[in-house]
């Protein structure tokens, strides 16, 4: 084998570079054992490359400072103790969860309280309305009291007539202001399509004059109605008439009648 020619091919430079196949590497390894001059060549190439590559490095790191890392890695490999639980982390999470729970609870409380407040507000408005109603009622009652206590008032009781003996009413007549106050508590509600009509009567001859119908009878609370009356009435009567009233009273439907007591 021509050793020199073999060297000149440049294969040994590639061998050092690590760019040959495994088979070629094996072959060269065999040749190096047999031919010391080949080995010498390889050593020189390698030496030159080692120096060249070393020249690129800006600095060396001595083995002592590196050794620490080596052992560190060794212990790292051996050291497979289970990781200690991270209590700080756990505590943090627990605190967060408790805090979140607390916030939710507070929110619930707030909603409940708001609801209670709303209910109380509604109750208050309702009570205020009731008070207002009571005041109005009281004022109306006082007014009524004032009316019937008036010294000019003439009281006329109206008795039940015929089939309607249980019915009754009362008229308080204030001649000074031409007004009668009819207390119709003793009359039943007017049925559908019917209405109460109030009459002023003179007796000789018997002449009825309509004082009007009571349209709001069924809905009125105290059943006291103020009606204008400028007539020289001698009696008052109440009949049940078709809605809208009648020109003259339907005598069969005369519920109550009362004559004014003229004896002083």
């Amino acid at each position, binding site marked *: 084998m021509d050793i020199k020619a073999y060297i000149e091919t*440049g294969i040994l*430079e*590639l061998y050092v*570079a*690590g760019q040959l196949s495994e088979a070629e*590497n094996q072959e060269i*390894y065999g040749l190096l054992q047999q031919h010391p001059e080949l080995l010498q060549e390889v050593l020189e190439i390698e030496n030159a490359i080692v120096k060249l590559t070393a020249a690129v*490095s800006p600095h060396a*790191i001595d*083995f002592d400072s590196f050794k620490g890392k080596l052992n560190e890695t060794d212990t790292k490999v051996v050291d497979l103790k289970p990781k200690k639980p991270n209590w700080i982390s756990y505590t943090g999470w627990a605190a967060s969860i408790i805090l979140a729970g607390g916030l939710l609870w507070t929110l619930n409380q707030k909603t409940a309280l708001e609801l209670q407040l709303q209910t109380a507000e509604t109750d208050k408005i309702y009570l205020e309305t009731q008070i207002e109603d009571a005041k109005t009622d009281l004022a109306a009652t006082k007014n009524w009291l004032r009316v019937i206590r008036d010294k000019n008032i003439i009281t006329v009781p109206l008795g039940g007539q015929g089939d309607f003996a249980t019915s009754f009413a009362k008229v308080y007549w204030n001649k000074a202001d031409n007004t009668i106050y009819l207390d119709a508590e003793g009359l039943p509600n007017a049925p559908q399509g019917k209405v109460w009509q109030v009459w002023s009567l003179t007796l000789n001859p018997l002449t009825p004059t309509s004082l009007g119908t009571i349209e709001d009878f069924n809905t009125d609370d105290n059943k006291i109605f103020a009606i204008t009356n400028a007539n020289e009435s001698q009696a008052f009567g109440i009949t049940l008439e078709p809605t809208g009233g009648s020109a003259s009273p339907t005598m069969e439907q005369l519920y109550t009648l009362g004559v004014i007591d003229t004896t002083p």
Partner: protein
Amino acid sequence: MADLDTLVNQFQNKNQVAFEKLYSMYNKSIHGVVYNIVKDTAIADEVMQDVFIKAWHKADTYSSKKGRFFTWILNIARNAAIDKTRSKAFKQSKQNLNADFFVDIIAGHDNLDDSTDAIGIKKFVTQLGEKCKAVIELLYFKGFTQKETSEELQMPIGTVKTRNRNCIQQLRDMVL
């Protein structure tokens, strides 16, 4: 060079003293190769040390039949450095690596000591032809194969081999 074989054997038997000797022989070279790829001193420090740690743990996988010990560790170093440049963190920190070749780096070292090696190498890189620079860069520093180098440099595959031989010869003349 029975000494080197003995050292490598001892190293494979986890002899730390032997390992230390091999380390002191090659750490700067490995650092240089890595630095030429990652272009960052701190990262090169880390990768170089990782390379030796890996070599220590994988010592039993080396066989002199497969090649030189230096070639073996050189190969580990190039792969580790290239892996590093492909890592996400590295890509983010090094958006634009400068394109310096080993020659530019050596020429840029102002603080080279005055040893004959340093003087010779500096002289070598300044006198080196462009083709030589590229061939050495690719074959030794970047780990390109002969075929890849021939494609990269648009040079017949046989020419890569002989030209490389000539380039290394020049280097030997100056540093040995």
